[in-house]
């Protein structure tokens, strides 16, 4: 698992105030793979995900120890601008959260911030929506509010919005937990498609989902990384008893 790591986490501890949410985590995420983070609620998997694009900076009273290397650079080094990191590492949230703007402006929001010129914008919007397999459904209603879309469409819109930034990595925080099975299937197909071009790290509560879509799986329990291996290995021959108990549904 040493080869082509895009993110390396070295001995990271994370605190909410005095509470330690992550304990001495070290792991590597591989390029163009789908990595699933699983574990019971409160195990720190979402916290870890939000550490990777410095979203936890927005919460008061949090503290990080250790280093997270993205393409060889520690993203928590003092001279690193979190805004730059977030432009390269996109994120999709649990609840679809389109802006109360038009579909077009939702996608164009990010690129406009980076100063993409108006001429390239239309093409970029189209390309992003096509990548997220939403183009055919929305191409005639681009100037309608994104709030009118269904939950599944909204989530694909959010994926398209993240893709419009041309990120290297896509973080997904339980992206299908608020969706129906059909929308979920569409998002999973989409993830399958996207991993050719992107590195995807996904938090999920759904173990079948982790088994279906991921190449590697990491199991967390109370802030500790318990086991991290190829997905088929984790789901067929886990090395740690806790992992086995969790994936067979004995707890969690």
């Amino acid at each position, binding site marked *: 698992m040493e080869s082509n790591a895009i993110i390396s986490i070295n001995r990271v501890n994370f605190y909410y105030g005095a509470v330690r949410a992550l304990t001495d985590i070290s792991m590597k995420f591989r390029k163009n793979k789908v990595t699933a983070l699983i574990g019971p609620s409160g195990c720190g998997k979402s916290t870890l995900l939000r550490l990777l694009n410095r979203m936890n900076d927005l919460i008061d009273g949090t503290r990080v120890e250790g280093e997270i290397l993205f393409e060889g650079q520690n993203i928590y080094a003092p001279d690193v601008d979190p805004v730059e990191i977030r432009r390269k590492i996109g994120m999709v949230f649990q609840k679809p959260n389109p*802006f109360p703007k038009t579909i077009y402006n939702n996608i164009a929001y990010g690129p406009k911030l980076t100063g993409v010129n108006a001429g390239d914008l239309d093409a970029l919007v189209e390309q992003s929506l096509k990548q997220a397999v939403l183009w055919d459904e929305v191409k005639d209603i681009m100037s309608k509010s994104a709030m009118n879309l269904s939950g599944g469409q909204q989530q694909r819109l959010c994926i398209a919005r993240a893709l419009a930034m041309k990120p290297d990595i896509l973080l997904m925080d339980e992206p299908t937990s608020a969706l129906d099975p059909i929308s979920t299937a569409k998002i999973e197909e989409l993830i399958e498609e996207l991993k050719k071009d992107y590195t995807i790290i996904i938090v999920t509560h759904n173990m079948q989902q982790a088994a279906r879509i991921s190449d590697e799986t990491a199991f967390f329990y109370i802030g500790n990384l318990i086991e991290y291996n190829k997905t088929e290995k984790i789901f067929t021959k886990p090395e740690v008893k806790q992992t086995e108990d969790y994936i067979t549904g004995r707890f969690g």
Partner: protein
Amino acid sequence: MNRQTKEIIIKYIFLLFALVSVIVLGLIVFSLFREGLPLFTEVSVKDFLFGMEWYPTYDPPSFGIFPLIVGSLIVTLLATFIAVPLGVMAAIYISEIAPQAIKETLKSVIELLAGLPSVVLGFFGMVIVAPWMQETFDLPTGLNIVNASVILAIMAIPTISSISEDALYAVPREFKDASYALGATKFETIVKVILPAAMSGISTAVMLGMARAIGETMVVLMVAGGAAAIPESLFDSVRPMPASIAAEMGETPYRSSHYSALFAIGIVLFCLTLAFNLIADYVSHKFRQIGSGTL
């Protein structure tokens, strides 16, 4: 008495209390119109609203309130121009930027400002702002539009700021997260996501702030100067409608035409504040239904 009867009685008692304010409002509006409308047997509505001369005690009197309407509108508008940026920016600072400790202090100071009696503010305008303005800008009087607007703005800021603040707080966390995750800075997030999403609430705040300013009596009575003429510059005195009513009501004979005219001014004021409230209501509902989708 069984439980159901009790419930019914309680329900009607609450209904009664709720109706009290409606009934009182109805009675006030009724008497306003009963006292004011007789004027229009003597003066046409057009001459009243657009007449240029307000000489209620002359013989024959003339009841043209256009200068008073202009006076009210101009101080209200100018006060709005001053109060909206200050109020909205204070709200943004409090809800989005300020650290916890400063936030609490600022909020209570602004609430304190709301609690200042208008007569105290009027005093301040009269005794401190007016002489300073007169000397500094070499004006015939310091009691003028600018002075009144500044004081009215100070009164409207707490209204605008606290309602805007509620609107900003109500913007879902998810929108902000989405914006930050796309690499927006705090400033970009505020300007492009939070403000548009809170626009309905902020518009309501502005409307209610204006309603507060246009109906305010004591301040304009004390510092607007009281000249019932169309102003030629922002440093002229004006006589806004509430000031006229308050200043003249004590001297009018009961049910004289001057008396009716003052009530008729009351009707105009009532309609204006009603309009502001309706617009505020409309704006907030409209945005709520469609989302600010087209922004």
